[in-house]
């Protein structure tokens, strides 16, 4: 019972971990470049979820000053603010890598990493 309690208490952490592993698995196993970018995004989401979950206070309210309820418990806004920045960063990275994928498709004619590696190693042997 206590195990289940602990599970439910920490469900957001566990979720974040699971997402992280899923993302990593995607990056490791897939050779399609776009899928790898998606994997990175999933990993990013996992970390953000984890970060935001830290700031959560059970029963807390959004941290906006409310004159009617002066002694409300606010959740910690700082992680959310930080993560906003993190999201911006990951968005830009994603956009950048997608544009690179477009370029790679134009120059190599494929977005499969195995094939690209094969092509480059052939280039090098010549």
């Amino acid at each position, binding site marked *: 019972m206590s195990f289940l309690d602990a599970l439910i208490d920490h469900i957001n952490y566990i979720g974040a971990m699971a997402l992280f592993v899923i993302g990593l698995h995607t990056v490791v196993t897939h050779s399609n470049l776009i899928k790898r970018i998606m994997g990175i995004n999933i990993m*990013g989401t996992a970390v953000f979820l984890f970060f935001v979950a*830290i700031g959560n206070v059970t029963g807390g309210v959004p941290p906006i000053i409310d004159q009617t309820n002066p002694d409300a418990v606010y959740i910690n806004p700082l992680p959310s603010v*930080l993560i906003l*920045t*993190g999201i911006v*960063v990951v968005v830009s990275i994603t956009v950048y890598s997608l544009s*690179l*994928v477009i370029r*790679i498709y134009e120059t190599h004619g494929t977005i499969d990493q195995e094939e690209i590696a094969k092509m*480059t190693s052939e280039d090098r042997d010549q």
Partner: protein
Amino acid sequence: MITQLPIINLLLFLGMALIIPLFKKRSFSLTTNLGLGVLFLVWISSIVLLYHVITEGAFYYQLGNYDRMLGIELLINTFSVLFSLFIVSLVIIIYIYSTGDATEGVAEKEYGRYYILLFILLFAMLGILYTNDLFNTYVFMEILSITTVSIISIKRKKENYTAAFRYVMLNEVGSLSYLFGVALLYMITGYTNIELVSEGVQSGWSLYPANILTAIGFMVTGIGIKAAIFPFHIWLPDAHSTAPSSSSAILSAVVVKVYILIMIKILFRVFGIDIIQAVHIPTVLLVIASIGMIMGSIFAIAQTDVKRMLGYSSVAQIGYIVMGIGMVSMLGLQAAFFHIFSHGLMKAALFLSVGAVIYHKKIRNVNEFDGIGFQMPVAMFVFSIAALGMIGVPLTTGFISKLNLGLAALDAGQVVLIVVLIVSGFLNALYYLPIMISAFLKDNKDQQRVMRVEKIPKTMLVPLVVLGGLIIAIGLFPGELLSLLEAAALSLT
């Protein structure tokens, strides 16, 4: 007013990057001259700051006067100022060179963009050094990554795209690992300010060991990826070899070092020596450094593209620095710092001289270097000085770093490391010496040797000569620098 200088440095770089697009219609030399002016201003202000920090001691700078628990805080101590001075000085030299050779593979309309990226790069590097905040470090690190990858892919060639993509993928994994570590630390301490986190970590070590342990693992691995420590070096040779020569020099000589400095900051300022020794991180570092020193050289031996070879050589040299860190002693840290300096100088000289050869002769293959020394005496002479430094011949900075590292290894009681050091130095000789020999002693294969001396711009020659001179000068008189570095190492604790 002096206390305002750090933020002014940052803003100067940022402002310069923002102004360049507005100058699009004007002549390009205006941009480069303005940029040089900005660099010199920052250089002078860094010197002033260094003097101030040494005489008056370190100081904090709160952005917007917010409390350090909430706001961003800059810490200006010997460590950050010395290394920012190092970065700016080296970049000035490379910048002057690049005004002659930004052309290598970069389209003319991209010049402006190249300098925008360069200044944002500088902004991010200085930010990383100054900031006293873990999350802020992350943000600057990401700015650095994006600008780096843009610089790598600024040449519109297909190998640039694959190299840049590889860089993005692995580095993003690294950044996320780092952020995950920050999250774990935030979880137990509730701060992102390095000092507050450090206090929290020290007191929370007994309560939440699992958290801290995982955080160390993830942060070290994440930064290890970005610093190209051995098993994660895979992105480096391609990325550094495909970039334009001047930016390869910046990437290899400076950018990678910045990540190592972050690692030093995290290991020594956030966790502290006690904790990292308790979880045996030094052992891990020493092992991967040793493997990296050997394997990097072995991979370098096999390369035919000279810039890829230099890239792998960087991998090996990063191993030297990590080894110094892994000894977790004052001497080791000092040796690592010195090697950051000396490798910065030597690798910049190597990349720039090779860049001059590529610019003039359009050859990149190591086997085609026969007789180049007669056609490009200055470039190959500087190359030779730097290469001898890599081998560790006396009178160059490389010898002093080797001596320092060796003494630090003895001090740490690790005699095995000296063997690694020597073997790595020997392997370095194995791939640098043949290039020098064929450049100066063999005749050109396809044509009778013609005494056509190099016709590369003066703006490229002068930086080369300055770098060569600095390598020898610091190799001859390292005392001052070493005492400064000792102060920097002391300011970490």
